[in-house]
Every structure is written in C-alpha cells, then in structure tokens.
C-alpha cells in the first residue's frame, strides 16, 4: 500500500490524462472511464481499476523510455558499434533472477490490494433482513422476482421510437430498488446463458440455467442506472437492457404497495366472467402484443423473415421448411404465404408455442391477455377477420392444450 500512496500524486491517472489529451478536442463529453459508482462495491472496484491502471502506466512509461532511448542512441546510422559481450556480463548472469523478483513485487502489490476487495465482493452476507431479488434471464428479456414482496416484474426493451436517446437502453418496467438497503441478487436463466451487468453497481454475473448464483449490493444514491446483457444469448442479445431505478426506502415501500394493488386489480379483472367488447379487447391486445410479441413479430406485424414470421394474411414468408412446416400443419401457412388458421390453433400456438422453433409457450399470460392478443392479431394490420376471442375461450383452450400435452 506504500506504493499506492506515492502514486496518489497522479490523481487523475496517467493513462487517462494521456488518453483524454489525445481524444479531447473532438469529444469533450465522450466517456472514457467507468461511470460514477453508485455502491460501495463499485467504488472498491473503481479504486482497484485506477490502482492497476496507474501502476501499469508507470511501468509502461519506463519501458517505453528505455526502448526509445535505445532506438535513438544504439543505431547503426549514428555509428553505434554493437557490444558483443553484453549478454555475457554480470547483469546477463543475474537478470533471470532480478527481473522476475521485480515483476513479482509489482504483481503482489496489485494482487494484495485486490484480495481484500475480492473478499468483500464475493462473500455475500448471510443476513435474514436482506432484500432478495431473483433475476431470471430469458431470450430476450429479464424477469425480476421480489421474493419477500411476492412481486414479479417483466422487463423488456422499449422500441426505438419510445426509448429516444436511451435507444436499446430503456425498458417498459424498470428494476426498482431501495437505496441504503442490503440487497441480495439471485441469478439464473430460463434458457441460454445471459449476464446481468449494471456498471454503476459494479455487478456482473452470468445467468446460467441449472445454477443459482448470488451477488449483493448496497446502493448509496438515487438515480437511474443502465446496463445490458453481457453474455451472447442469440439473435437479440443487443436488445436486453437492464435499467435499475434506485429510490429511497420510503418511496420503495410505496412503490411495492402500488404494484400489489395493480396486480390485484389485474388478477380480479382477468378472473371475472365479464364478456368483453371487441374494441376493448383490441385496445388491451395492442398493449399486450407490443409488450410480449413485438420483439420478434414487430409492431407492424410484419415479423423478421426468415427468422420470425409475419402475422398478416397474404404476406410471403420465405423461410426454411423447419419453420414453415409446423406453421402449415397448424393451418397458418400455404403456398409460401401466411394465412390465418382457426382460433383454436391460434390459441394453441400462443399457449404451447411451436416446439423446435423460437416460438415459446406463453401460458404464463392470463386468459384476458391471451384473448386480447388473439383478438388484436386477428383484426389488426388488415387481417379484419372480425373474430372476437373471450377469456372463457382461452380457459377452454388451456384445458385442451393440457390434455394434448398429457398425451
């Protein structure tokens, strides 16, 4: 740690100074270092980062100085004569001991101070009072489960027109967390590997199916912190933002209450026997579709051929037989074009997905949402079938699909 003190004079970090001097004129606001930490862990990491950067910068300057001096002085064109005995001298005899000892000294300085920080980061306190959030990675969205509060938040990227300047870094539902509270995160995945990364919190952990790993943080200021999935997870890896909104513990309690009320209202509504009007279903269906389906099938229903089919009758879908055959079997594909199959098959695809393709089951949606989505899809973008699907129809389809699955 003595070494640390003597570098303190280089307050801003030599490498950074050099870099900003190079980059400064064109881009005064371009970020060239970590964002301002918002937790103790992130601050520890930032300090280690600056320490290693300063040490390596000084070493680099020393080595470059020696090489540059040699390049200038020991050149044939200046009349230098090679010293044919240098590799036989005393330094040559002992350099293989001296140099490793020097490098080892630097290594131990770095590793020693990293070791303390590592302990604090790695050993998650076993404390009953901690707020526990389970973070589940999905292709391609995040699910946040507040275990004690019994709240579930699904967080999906907003389309560009809504995200604005936070293009690819804004979501429909943020991960709301209280400040000055010890939070334990439990990480896992529902499908392929993902990684949860919020630079301001100094947190990055892989989400791996079959594993539950932990991290922890105490957020020390309010704010919105943006990160994104850091492990390649397939097609829309670039569209998995993580947006944390840190608010005071008091506000957080209020938020939890509010979410609970909203959930209760939604549940009651979905469970009621009410028969919905077509307009109401289309209205709800548009929101639900934009949230759950538009990532692949797009807001305009045109899909992204050849990966994701359009949902508009008459649209061509030039894709491989792996994708078109299951569609044709269900009556949604004919002669290279999309057609609209029956309501029963439509609901079955939503509830059970199409095994072997990217279409996953959406059985976790409530009956009202599924009914609304089906109604919307069958009436939007010129489909105009006039079909109205009621929650009761979904309930029947659910029972039918369970029977089918059981066989």
């Amino acid at each position, binding site marked *: 740690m003595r070494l640390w003190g003597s570098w303190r004079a280089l307050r801003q970090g030599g490498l950074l100074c050099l870099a900003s001097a190079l980059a400064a004129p064109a881009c005064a606001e371009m970020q060239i270092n970590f964002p301002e930490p918002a937790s103790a862990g992130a601050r520890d990491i930032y300090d280690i980062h600056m320490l290693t950067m300063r040490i390596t910068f000084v070493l680099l300057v020393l080595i470059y100085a020696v090489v540059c001096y040699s390049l200038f002085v*020991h050149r044939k064109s200046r009349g230098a004569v090679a010293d044919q005995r240098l590799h036989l001298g005393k330094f040559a005899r002992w*350099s293989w001991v001296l140099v490793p000892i020097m490098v080892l000294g630097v290594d131990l300085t770095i590793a020693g101070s990293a070791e303390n920080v590592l302990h604090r*980061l790695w050993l998650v306190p076993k404390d009953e009072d901690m707020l526990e959030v389970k973070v589940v990675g999905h292709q391609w969205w995040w699910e946040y489960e507040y275990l004690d509060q019994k709240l579930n938040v699904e967080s999906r990227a907003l389309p560009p027109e809504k995200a604005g300047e936070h293009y690819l870094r804004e979501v429909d539902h943020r991960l709301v967390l209280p400040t000055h509270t010890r939070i334990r995160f439990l990480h896992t995945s529902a499908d392929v590997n993902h990684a949860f990364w919020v630079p301001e919190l100094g947190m990055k952990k892989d989400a791996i199916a079959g594993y539950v790993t932990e991290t922890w943080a105490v957020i020390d200021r309010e704010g919105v912190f943006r990160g994104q999935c850091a492990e*390649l997870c397939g097609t829309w890896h670039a569209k998995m933002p993580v947006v944390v909104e840190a608010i005071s513990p008091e506000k957080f309690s209020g938020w939890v209450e509010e979410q609970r009320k909203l959930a209760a209202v939604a549940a009651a509504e979905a469970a009621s026997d009410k028969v919905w009007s077509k307009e109401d279903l289309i209205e709800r269906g548009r929101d639900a579709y934009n949230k759950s389906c538009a990532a692949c099938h797009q807001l305009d229903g045109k899909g992204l051929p050849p990966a994701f089919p359009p949902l508009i009758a008459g649209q061509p879908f030039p894709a491989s037989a792996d994708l078109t055959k299951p569609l044709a079997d269900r009556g949604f594909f004919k002669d290279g074009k999309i057609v609209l199959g029956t309501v029963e098959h439509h609901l079955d695809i939503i509830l059970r997905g199409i095994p072997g393709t990217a279409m996953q089951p959406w059985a976790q949606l409530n009956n009202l949402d599924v009914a609304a989505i089906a109604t919307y899809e069958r009436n939007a973008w010129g489909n105009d079938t006039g079909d109205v699907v009621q929650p009761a129809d979904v309930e029947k389809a659910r029972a039918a699909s369970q029977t089918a699955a059981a066989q």
Partner: protein
Amino acid sequence: MSTVTVHDHDVQDHHHHAMPSGWRRWLLSTNHKDIGTLYMIFALVMLFTGGFMAMLIRAELFMPGIQLLQPDLYNNMVTNHALIMVFGAVMPAAAGMANWMIPLMIGAPDMALPRLNNLSFWMLAAGGLLLICSILVPFVPGGGTPVNTGWTLYPPLSLQVGMSMDLLIFTVHLLGISSILASINIIVTLFNTRAPGMTLMKMPIFCWAWMVTAFLLILIMPALASGVTMLLFDRHFGTSFFNAAGGGDPVLFQHLFWFFGHPEVYVLLLPSMGIVAHIVPTFSRKPLFGYTSTVGAMISIGAIGMLVWAHHQYTIGMSLAAVTYFMIGTILISIPVGLMILNFIATMWRGAMSFETPMLFAIAIILLFTFAGMTGVMLAVIPGDIQYHDSYFVVAHFHYALIPGALFGLYAGVFYWLPKWTGHMYDEKLGKLFFWLTMIGFNLTFFPQHFLGLAGMPRRIVDYNLVFTEFNMLSSIGAFIFGVSQILLPIIIIKTIRGGQKASARVWEASEGLEWMLPSPPPFHSFSEPPVIK
C-alpha cells in the same frame, strides 16, 4: 501461378530424386518447403477471408442501427472471423514457417515424417472447406440457422443452432487432428534430426518456441475435441452433458473449452515470439541476450498457461478459493512474459540497430505486446474484471495481444525470410509503407475500443446505444485503413517471387544460423550431408 515460380530456381540443383511437377508436386508432396508454402498460401487466403468478415463487422458497427447484417448473420460473422483467424490464418501460417525453417535451422534434409506432413496439411484444407460449408449452409433452403454463438460455442445456445453447428463441430475435429499430427511431426523432427553437435540448448530459439507450442497443442486439442463431441451428442443422440434439465452442466463445456482456449493463446503467440527472437539479434548485430532464460520463459509460459484457464469465466459464480487461485496464477504469467520482453530489449541495448521492415515489426511487437500485457494484468485482477468482462475492453485487449503478438510476428517472419525463400529481396519501400499503414490502422481500430469497454459497451452486440457512436466510428475508420492496407502484403510477396535484387545466402548483414549457409533459395532437399556444429 506465383506459387510454382518459387521453386523454378531449384531445378539446377543436384537432388537425388526427380522433382515431381504439375499438380502431383503439390497434392502428393512430401517436401517440407512445398508443404510449408502450401500452408502459407492457405493462411493468406484465410487471412483475407477472415479480414473481409472483420470489415463487414466494422461496417455494421460504424453507426447505431442495423444496416448491413441481420443479428444472426452478424453473430455468425463474429464467430467465423475468430475461427478463421485462429485456425485458418495464424496457426497454419506458423505451421508453414515451422515446416520451411525448422529443417533448415537444425541441418536436416526434411521433416522427420514427410507423409504425415502431407496428411496434416490436406486435413487442414478439408477442415477449411467444411468451415466454409458451415458458413454457407444457412443460405440454402432448409439449412437452418447460422452459428450465432461466438467462437466459444457455449451451450445451451449452441444446442439451438441448425446444421451449420454440426459442420462446425466436424471442422473442429479435422483441424484438431491436423494440428496434433503436425505437432507430432515437429517434435519428432526436433528430437531426432538435429545436426551432430547441436544439443538442445544450442537449438535456434524459433525451434524451441515451436517445441513448446507443439507440446501445448497435443495436450489441449483433445479437450476441445471431447467438448465439441459431447455437444454433438447432446444435439443428436439425446445425451445431457450440458443440459441442466437432464442433469448436465452448461459450465462443464466452458471449462473444457477454456482448458483448450487459454493455452491456445500461447500456441498463437509463441512461434511469433520465436521469430522476434531471431530478428532482433540480426538487426541489432549482436547475439540474443539471455538465450537460456528465454527458453526457460517460453517453457514457463506454456506450463503456467495450462493452469489458469478459468480466468475467462470469473463471472460464472466460482468459489472464492477457486477464483483467487486463478487470479494469482494468471498474474504470475507476467513474470516469464516480462523476462522474455526484457531479453528482447536488452538485445537491442548497445547494439548497432538498423530498421528494415522485419525489425520495424519486431519493435512494434515489443511495444504493443507490452501494452497488451499491462491490460492483461488489469483483466487478471478479479474486481476489475467484473467490469471489463465481456466488454469491448476485452476485445481491445486480445486484439492488442494477438495482432502484434501473433500476426505481426508472422509478418515480420515473412519479410525476414522471403529473400531466403524466393532468392529475391523484397521492395523495402513498399515494405515500410505497409508497416506504417498497418500500424496506423491497427491502433486507430483498437485503441478506442478500450474506452468503449470502460464506458459499458458489451462485446458481440450488433447494435448499440448512441453514447458509443463516436468511438465506434473512429474504430471503423481505423479498421478500413487497416483492412485496405493489407492488400499491399500479397502485392509485395508476388513482386518478390517474380524478381528483384538477388539475395545472397546470408541475406542480412548479421544473420546467424545454419539456414543462412544454404543458398537463397535453398535446394529442394535441404541438407543432404549433415553440417557439424562445434
């Protein structure tokens, strides 16, 4: 064809066998020089294929939004750029140089196992063909989705991919067998066919570098092969090695992959460092400083490099004890690497340097690779790595390590030995132009990526937030300069093959070693009488 002319000068030589001609000379070749040439032509073609993919990637990333490549195709380019550069360009080029130079350097008539030599090249070519099939098959109707996993091929994602993944798995098998056969050949050659009097500790350092490399390859390739075989079984035969739902473990594949993947870095690096260890003494006009410690450093790099693979997986949730071990082990690699770099610098020190193209590349390697070593230490330190991991900082780091550490070393070798291979001097002015354009392009491409990573841009994303625009543009402009300037390389090589100032046997004023005692170009069969080393 340029390749045939290389050996037109050999005809006057007095060899014992008639030299085969036409396609038989190449397809059935058992000659170390011809096979070496084949390896290097293959590598050059692959370098430009992989380079073209890099250009597509940088064009897509020039600004936010998806303009050129759909996400899966983009991920496929990222995957194949890496695979082609590692398995198609750098490893074959280094193997080609080993083939050409090792018999010359140790005073042998040829490689010890010439037919095996032929087999290992043509298996490589078959592997290359299969890799191209893997890229093209998704474009055929019914061909499934492209490999979009990155070169690490992590399951479960790699279990979702279409048949292009199966072709890739077989590619890896073929390339692995090819590398192992080539390594066996090199080890046997180095142990058994050295000239009388050349003890192991008198062996040229390039041979030592390849000795370590060959042992590494034999040790690590089976790990990768078993990993991808299990992947194949999971995909088609109902096993669950990597499927948690069936009792398997997705992380197991990561361990198998990096047990291969980390030493692979040194497989790419060491031959090039061996080349630098020849070039620096030649152009400093004095012997290599610390021959023994350089050999020791190379062996230590190989040995420690085998034991630190999981530093690529700090974020998977290993125990504190495990990550601490991998951190300390990784940091310790800086000791042999530092020693090796010091030996290079001390060789320059109080020399009489001149700056021909190979020396320019060697100096650039020393400076840039040292820089990559520094970011390497930063990455080894876990708290820091929590932020750098899977960000553009990593992309910048390993391109700084592998482009100077591996590719520029091979470039240096090409310029250093081209007069020996062809009998003509290359165009020094063009060589220097090539060097400077390459340096400007390379640094402009990869230096800004450090900042992107620190600011929070993850790697392997097809599209990014607006705050990352400026550095990405800068990086793409650098990449285009870098890419276009590489066209000079084949131009220089073809020009040299066609003619130019005749090269002497010694070629360079202060070159030392058996390879410089034979005429340029050397006869078809290198040494028919073993030279005696005192």
